[in-house]
């Protein structure tokens, strides 16, 4: 149900469909990819970055919006908080109620630790819930963890920390097994064989899925398990400062009730930051596929107590965000649409790239098509290209879309677009924070003792770009690992006197560097309020 202005272009797409299905576009060479990224990928736009002037990554570049939050003042002063009578006293404090935080809490609980989750919205309000396409694991006979390693390492531009990546790929099959034994459903054939597909940049079909609700299915099961175990979940409560002890080790967090503003103190032997991503920072003005609370809080919390960041200058723009209609602008159109056979097509019906290049390359290629090449479709809200979804029904047979990607069919169906019969318009959307806090293989930060990190807040697992399906995987692998490591570590921790001395120290650094703004962080939530209505 597109308006008339799209008719001509849709006709071109339809006319070329049969030929486009048969056509196998060449993959780009390493050189072609490099040149394309340098010219069109948002990470390469120098004017969008600035160098940090204080903190452990001083001198390194990050997006303007992130620099502002990393170098902003605290929401509190030390004297606002009484640290002598904590409201909570636990072995392991998990900050964040997404897939990584929930996995960590379950494993810490399994190991006998007293664990609690604090989350600024509800448990499950997380990017995990919105992951659609699937989760990678090299569990087929023609595949191996080594091949998975090579795919991810190359896809991430050879920048991943190898000890983290090898853990990711080697623990992957067990992660799938763990989820399955918790009752997570996977798409399987009648004999139990996993139905797997390609993702961009994979050399084997190792994408496991639960239709296109893969993350939702994982998240709701993990949430159910957390509740079954009676793990305390303090919701609508954010962490706004890490508390250290007099030895300089992480020892808890200052919490803020999101509705009343009340401050609380949680004391802990170990702290796990599992706060997720940063899409709601809207870097470079991009729309985002992320949930409402994705504001890089964990990076800010860690940075202020001295934890180092790795690759905080690299973001992932998912090539296929919805570009039309406006109501779903920026929403994720899962890569699985391309895994199932849909190709990217320009205004004239021409296939302009292999549909399963890595995400950074695909995003840059779409941006080139819509800018210098002038082959984009004008949506009324910017340019876009077609993703020719009806190809899926022709390749996989009628009913494939309803069975394999029902969420996509529903999302567009609500606006009168039947993706079985009509192509959809897409443009890159801010999707994933490649960088984050620097950790070792046990998930502890490299320079703040007893501070652990898991999930999207970690930097270095994927390098400078991430393959589809490796994030759902990393939240499980590193979430579980962080929970186990923190529970084990907590047994030997004697917490010293609690202090918020780092706040004044950071404030002094700000002053010395001439930072005068009154911005505070972490951001917690974006502000979309207009106050413009007439009544």
């Amino acid at each position, binding site marked *: 149900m597109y308006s008339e202005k799209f008719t001509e272009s849709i006709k071109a797409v339809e006319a070329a469909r049969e030929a486009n299905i048969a056509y196998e576009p060449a993959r780009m060479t390493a050189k072609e990819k490099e040149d394309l990224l340098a010219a069109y990928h948002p990470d390469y736009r120098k004017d969008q970055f600035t160098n940090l002037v204080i903190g452990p990554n001083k001198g390194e570049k990050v997006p303007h919006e992130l620099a502002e939050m990393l170098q902003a003042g605290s929401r509190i002063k030390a004297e606002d908080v009484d640290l002598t009578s904590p409201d909570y006293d636990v072995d392991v404090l998990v900050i964040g109620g997404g897939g990584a935080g929930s996995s960590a809490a379950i494993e810490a609980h399994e190991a006998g630790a007293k664990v609690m989750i604090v989350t600024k919205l509800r448990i499950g309000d997380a990017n995990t819930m919105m992951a659609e396409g699937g989760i990678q694991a090299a569990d087929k006979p023609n595949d191996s963890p080594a091949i998975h390693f090579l795919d991810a390492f*190359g896809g991430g531009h050879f920048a991943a920390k190898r000890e983290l990546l090898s853990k990711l790929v080697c623990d992957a099959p067990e992660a799938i097994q763990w989820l399955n034994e918790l009752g997570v459903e996977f798409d399987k054939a009648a*004999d139990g064989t996993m139905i797997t597909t390609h993702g961009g940049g994979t050399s084997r079909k190792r994408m496991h899925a639960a239709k296109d609700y893969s993350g939702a299915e994982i998240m709701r099961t993990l949430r159910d398990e957390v509740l079954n175990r009676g793990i305390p979940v303090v919701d609508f409560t954010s962490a706004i400062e890490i508390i250290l002890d007099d030895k300089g080790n992480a020892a808890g967090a200052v919490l803020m009730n999101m509705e009343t503003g009340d401050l609380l103190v949680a004391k802990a032997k170990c702290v796990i930051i599992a706060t997720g991503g940063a899409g709601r920072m809207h870097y470079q003005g991009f729309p985002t596929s992320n949930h409402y609370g994705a504001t890089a809080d964990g990076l800010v919390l860690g940075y202020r107590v001295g934890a180092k960041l790795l690759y905080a200058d690299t973001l992932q723009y998912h090539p296929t965000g919805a570009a039309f209609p406006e109501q779903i602008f920026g929403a994720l159109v899962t890569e699985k649409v391309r895994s199932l056979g849909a190709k990217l097509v320009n205004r004239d019906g021409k296939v302009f790239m292999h549909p399963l290049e890595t995400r950074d390359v695909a995003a840059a290629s779409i941006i080139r098509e819509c800018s210098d090449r002038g082959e984009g479709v004008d949506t009324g809200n910017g340019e876009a290209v077609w993703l020719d979804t009806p190809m899926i029904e022709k390749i996989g047979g009628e009913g494939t879309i309803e069975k394999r990607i029902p969420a996509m069919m529903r999302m567009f169906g609500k606006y009168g677009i039947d993706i079985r019969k009509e192509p959809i318009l897409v443009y890159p959307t801010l999707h994933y924070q490649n960088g984050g806090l620097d950790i070792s293989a046990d998930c502890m930060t490299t320079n703040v003792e007893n501070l652990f990190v898991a999930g999207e807040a970690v930097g270095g697992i994927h390098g400078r770009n991430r393959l589809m399906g490796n994030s759902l995987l990393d939240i499980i692998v590193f979430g579980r690992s962080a929970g186990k490591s923190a529970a084990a570590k907590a047994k030997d921790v004697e917490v010293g006197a609690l202090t918020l001395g780092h706040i004044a120290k950071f404030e002094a650094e700000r002053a010395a560097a001439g930072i005068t703004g009154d911005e505070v962080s972490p951001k917690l939530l974006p502000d*979309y309020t207009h106050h413009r209505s007439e009544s």
Partner: protein
Amino acid sequence: MEAMVNVFLFGKQYRVPEELTIMRAMEYAGYKLVRGCGCRNGFCGACATIYRIKGDRELKVCLACQTKVEEGMYVATLPFFPLVKEVYNIEEVKPTEQVMMQLYPEIYACVGCNACTKACTQGLNVMQYIAYAQRGEYEKCAEESFDCVMCGVCSSRCPAGISHPQVAMLARRLNGKYLAPKTEHLEDRVREIKDGTFNELIEALMQKSVEEMKELYNTREIEK
């Protein structure tokens, strides 16, 4: 000038652009959301909403992030609903009819009014999946309920006090863990990794120079 419509947020009138979703309209009017807003993309169920169009007798339901405003729309969001979530040990329960009788006996008090199905923001056949749960047909219940976002509107309309999303959650876990076929290749691979089958291969990759890795990557064979 963009076309405007009149909406009534919790009964109070605002004029907002007609192309906005209900969620965006609330923000346009000046609400800073904390409750009732999660993924903003139709997956998390945080923004369950009940509405009525002026002059229409029928109550409608939707997700606020997925639905456009309309002229004369009276909106009440339902950011929380007290569902019953029973606690169980997934390792100890069995996929038999008895487990539902023990944990969620109220499902057998279903009066067949179908209000749940009419109230589903995802358009699911909720009463049907409850019927499957009553009969212990967990595979069917899991399939029928699969797209549930657990927003809870169904339960808010149920005269029998059933917590449909939690019933379905249990059914899906029983199906995923006990009823769906086992995956032999997964079990084999986990065992191989534990046995150290791939250690040498991985260790070799850990040692190679970036140049060697580039060569391997750029010439790797890609499965069709």
